[in-house]
């Protein structure tokens, strides 16, 4: 057998994922209208005014509707826009079904997000043929069986494969091998490069870097001076240098847990704000205990009705995973920073983890620490068994505020990541 030293990596990316999944599901249920053929978006609920565009159809793109903008802004651009609320359960099922199919072609599949996967095709040529033919076969297999289209990028590492799948959509297979970089990747504007975002682009433009090629041919010493280690990373990316493995699991060590919510009305009084913070803390603390961690840092963020965001954090004296203790700190730091203006969005976040198996007690701990932990554990177990609404704090009665808030309600929903 030929010795294969070069890796072959596929990046599979679902075309307008949430929208095509929603469209295919509706067609299967007998709807005659295909959402993909009309201006339509998936996202939020226009009635409760919260919500942004999560995915858009290609006809919606012609109205210059952008992912991430508010539904209000989108409707202004296209008044007859069709809006459908997201159903995460369906997306998880679609994503799982796709991973199932991919695993027929290679044992090493990494789910990068709900709609993106990496597949290590190295050494699979004897089974499914040349990479391009195999990619086309996978793409058609997914379309035939699951009804939605994907783009597949092929290269020798994850970064280039990901760049390749982004070239022309939909339903395409592209290659971006190292020798194709100057022709296919360098002419692109620098903001198209993975990890070059809103904050980096103006800095690069100031350095007269406008295309990926400009960045690739820049002096790395100079870039490190300006942009530190991140600069070196994007310089390497621009040159196609990246060698992370396709990880079977997507388990990266957690660094923080947070939840936030946009409130359906403007919060003006302290009491209501505290209740919302408590409902967020409930979710965050449950997730923290579920992950088996204690936290040593608590942070909150506030977005006011002028869309101005600010945050505040505090280091704890001792690590904790108790809802009560976290909430106490949350309340304190909220009271310290809140200026009394109208609030639109609140967030709670914990980080600086240590294991919850053994940890240092503080002299100033409450005496009934063990009791509190037992109580939290019991509540978690009841909620797990009988649903999150089975036990709630009495303060939420008649308050119109959900006793737990934040999150998409689907724990196994794969999050977005900036780490390849």
């Amino acid at each position, binding site marked *: 057998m030929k010795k294969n030293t070069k890796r072959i990596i596929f990046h599979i990316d679902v075309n307008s994922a949430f929208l095509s999944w929603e469209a*295919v*599901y509706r*067609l299967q249920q007998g709807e005659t209208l295909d959402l993909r053929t009309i201006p339509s978006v998936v996202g939020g609920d226009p009635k409760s005014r919260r919500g942004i565009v999560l995915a858009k159809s290609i006809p919606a793109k012609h109205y210059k509707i952008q992912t991430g903008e508010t539904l209000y802004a989108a409707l202004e651009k296209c008044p007859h826009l069709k809006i459908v609320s997201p159903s995460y359960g369906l997306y998880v099922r679609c994503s*799982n*079904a796709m991973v199932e199919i991919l695993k027929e072609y290679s044992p090493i599949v990494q789910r990068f997000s709900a709609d993106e996967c990496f597949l290590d095709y190295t050494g699979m040529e004897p089974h499914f043929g040349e990479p391009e033919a195999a990619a086309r076969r996978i793409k058609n297999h997914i379309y035939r*069986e*699951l009804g939605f289209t994907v783009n597949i990028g092929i290269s020798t590492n994850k970064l280039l494969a990901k760049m390749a799948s982004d070239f022309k959509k939909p339903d395409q297979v592209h290659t971006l091998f190292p020798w194709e970089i100057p022709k296919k990747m360098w002419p692109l504007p620098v903001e198209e490069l993975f990890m070059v975002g809103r904050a980096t682009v103006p800095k690069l433009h100031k350095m007269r870097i406008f295309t990926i090629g400009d960045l690739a041919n820049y002096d790395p010493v100079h870039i490190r001076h300006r942009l530190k280690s991140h600069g070196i990373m994007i310089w390497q990316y621009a040159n196609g240098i990246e060698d992370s493995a396709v990880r079977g699991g997507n388990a990266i060590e957690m660094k923080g847990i947070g939840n936030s919510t946009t409130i359906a009305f403007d919060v003006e009084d302290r009491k209501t704000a505290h209740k919302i913070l408590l409902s967020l803390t409930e979710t965050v603390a449950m997730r923290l205990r579920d992950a088996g961690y204690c936290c040593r840092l608590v942070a909150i963020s506030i977005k006011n009705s002028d869309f101005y965001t600010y945050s505040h954090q505090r280091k704890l004296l001792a690590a904790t995973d108790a809802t009560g203790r976290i909430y106490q700190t949350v309340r304190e730091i909220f009271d310290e920073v809140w200026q009394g203006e109208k609030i639109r969005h609140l967030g709670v976040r914990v980080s600086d983890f240590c294991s919850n198996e053994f940890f240092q007690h503080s002299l100033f701990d409450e005496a009934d620490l063990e009791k509190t932990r037992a109580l939290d554990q019991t509540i978690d177990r009841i909620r797990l068994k009988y649903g999150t609404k089975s036990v709630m704090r009495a303060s939420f009665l008649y308050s119109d505020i959900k006793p737990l808030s934040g999150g998409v309600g689907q724990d196994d929903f794969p999050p977005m990541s900036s780490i390849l």
Partner: protein
Amino acid sequence: MKVVRKPIDVSAIFYQEGVIVPIKFRIQKSDESWVVVKVDRVIAKELEKLAGNKMWVFTCESTIGDMQRLYQLKYELDTCQWMLFKI
């Protein structure tokens, strides 16, 4: 055949081997009376996995009134619900 997607009650045999065969179904008309249709022949069956949602699609034939009609029944594995999909 045209898409109608009406929910229906179904009698079916679930064989030991995991094979499902619809025997008869009933459907409610607009005046709330029921019509029972015996499935004369299952012409084709296919497992549809669109959007990752598994549904058995049965293409069947029956004599309805005095006409031979071709139609499609769908059985959703997740919800155990049947529908008259196309007729």
